[in-house]
């Protein structure tokens, strides 16, 4: 356990020296997003393919209030968490009553619902043009408009989010969610209202997605329509799977890989989603289990210990 924490702290300190602080911040933001998804995907076994719903909704609501009502940074964040959780409660309520393929399709379809609302409601969201002009209000005299202070803020929130998720995952709730993933029927039989617990996972995942959405809006100063679109939903699933959904830290690694990939390639070619699609296909056909599992398989081969 300890060595992961040290590695992460080191990464947090070193990253803005190696990359532009804005990109470094984007990595941590996407990692928060991934942590939220992985509670559903890795821990509860629910493939939610509509997380952008909560990410984008929080971004729009907080963005609107930041822009037009000048609310502060922490109220914006709190609001984002709330909107993310509330929208997840709504969507989750409809989705947890179905399972398997139906569940996946429903999360996608409801994502489309929110997307089209955002697309059409141009007076509020700006439609295709997005919602620009989102400020980064100062806090206690600290000016967040500079990249480095904002980076520190984001990375601190990331570490906080990671700590919270770690507590949740190690709590009885974390165990119950994993039990649901392992054997839903037995979990119900031993006394857990499985639908309620799935909904709880949804809401927590939504809260994390919402936080990420607000931080994203403030990072780029704009909420693009894509933030609530299915490609964003797909990206976070990809990042989580490539990092490895079987561990707490998988989404973080996945975020590194994904953001680095997308930032470097997207500037080169407008058709870069094609390469993204190719990357997805290659990962699926050849690199299942992700980086974390490949790493742990390497270590257990080295030390011949049973896999944990």
């Amino acid at each position, binding site marked *: 356990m300890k060595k992961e924490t040290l590695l992460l702290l080191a990464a947090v300190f070193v990253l803005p020296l190696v990359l532009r602080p804005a990109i470094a911040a984007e990595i941590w933001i996407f990692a928060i997003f991934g942590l939220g998804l992985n509670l559903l*995907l890795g821990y509860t076994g629910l*493939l939610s*393919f509509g997380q952008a719903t909560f990410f984008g909704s929080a971004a729009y609501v907080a963005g609107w209030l930041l822009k037009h009502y000048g609310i502060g940074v922490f109220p914006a964040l709190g609001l984002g968490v709330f909107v993310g959780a509330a929208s997840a409660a709504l969507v989750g309520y*409809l989705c947890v*009553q*179905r399972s*398997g*393929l*139906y569940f*996946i*399709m*429903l999360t*996608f*379809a*409801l994502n*489309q*619902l929110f997307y*089209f*609302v955002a697309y*059409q409601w141009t007076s509020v969201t700006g439609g295709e043009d997005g919602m620009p002009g989102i400020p980064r209000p100062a806090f206690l005299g600290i000016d967040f408009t500079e990249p480095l202070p904002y980076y520190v803020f984001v990375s601190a929130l990331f570490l906080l989010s990671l700590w919270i998720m770690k507590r949740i995952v190690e709590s009885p709730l974390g165990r119950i969610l994993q039990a649901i993933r392992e054997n839903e029927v037995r979990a119900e039989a031993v006394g857990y209202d499985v639908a309620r617990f799935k909904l709880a996972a949804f809401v927590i995942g939504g809260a994390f997605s919402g936080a990420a959405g607000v931080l994203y809006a403030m990072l780029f100063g704009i909420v693009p329509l894509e933030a609530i679109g*299915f*490609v964003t939903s*797909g990206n976070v*699933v*990809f990042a989580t*799977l490539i990092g490895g*959904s079987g561990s707490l830290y998988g989404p973080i690694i996945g975020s590194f890989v994904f953001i680095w990939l997308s930032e470097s390639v997207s500037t080169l070619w407008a*058709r870069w*989603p*094609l390469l*993204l*699609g*190719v*990357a*997805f*296909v290659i*990962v*699926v*056909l050849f690199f*299942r289990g992700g980086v974390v599992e490949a790493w742990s398989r390497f270590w257990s081969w080295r030390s011949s210990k049973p896999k944990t």
Partner: protein
Amino acid sequence: MSLLAGQILNGIATGMLYALMGLGLSLITGILNIPNFAHGALFAIGAYLLATVAVTIGNFWIALLVAPIGVALLGLAIEYVGIRRLYAAGHDYQLLFTFGLALILSESIILIWGPVGYSHLPPDILRGGVDLGFTFYPKYRLFVMAAAGVLVLATWLFLEKTRYGAIMRAGIENKEMVSLLGIDIHRLFTVAFALGAYLAGIAGALTAPIRGLSPGMGVDMLGIAFVVVALGGLGNLLGAIGAGLLIGVAQAVVAAYWTEASTVVIYAVMAAVLLVRPQGLFGIR
């Protein structure tokens, strides 16, 4: 009044296309048990192929015949090269694969045909309208209703009345049983995927003269196909038709009064139905 009547007819036409999409997706998802996120892209390719072939050889009808077959062949290739390897992989990876495929296909469309949408006119014989008494209605849309109806009927006949169709329906219910009965389950999967792709392709081909072509048309249709399946039930033929028509008509009627909300309505109807009946319109609890 005639506006409403016209819209309802429009709704039936698009509803039939939605039903075709839902049917194809339902077959693939029901038999192969994978989430096919590339289904919308197959639809789009069907449309683009139709437009290209029709323009190149100057004959709409041959294009209408050929384009869906092209999509079916593409489906065969996809199943053979990729999906076949993923049956044991779990939904996460299957989803990512088909999603990646969707990206590849839609970006390829932009590469080949450009990012800007364009329209494609129906063949001369189907241009113009017909006087139905209460309204003057485009001939092409009547053709679409008829063509889609024929296709749905043909699919129904295939599934209900032929031996292989029965095997497919059995495959939706119980794959192990089907393979235990000595039927080549892999061939079943391939046929199902190709058939589903064909249905998506022809839905796209039929749509081109109505809605025009744009690279994003696949994604919009994907969501709608999912709604049809969620409401109608996997592998449920009648469910797909019923759900398709329901949302097609709902969308068209709303469009008459509040255009912006017309797409959202589809999803809103889905959410409303699922609130009351989580198992969908025709699902069993």
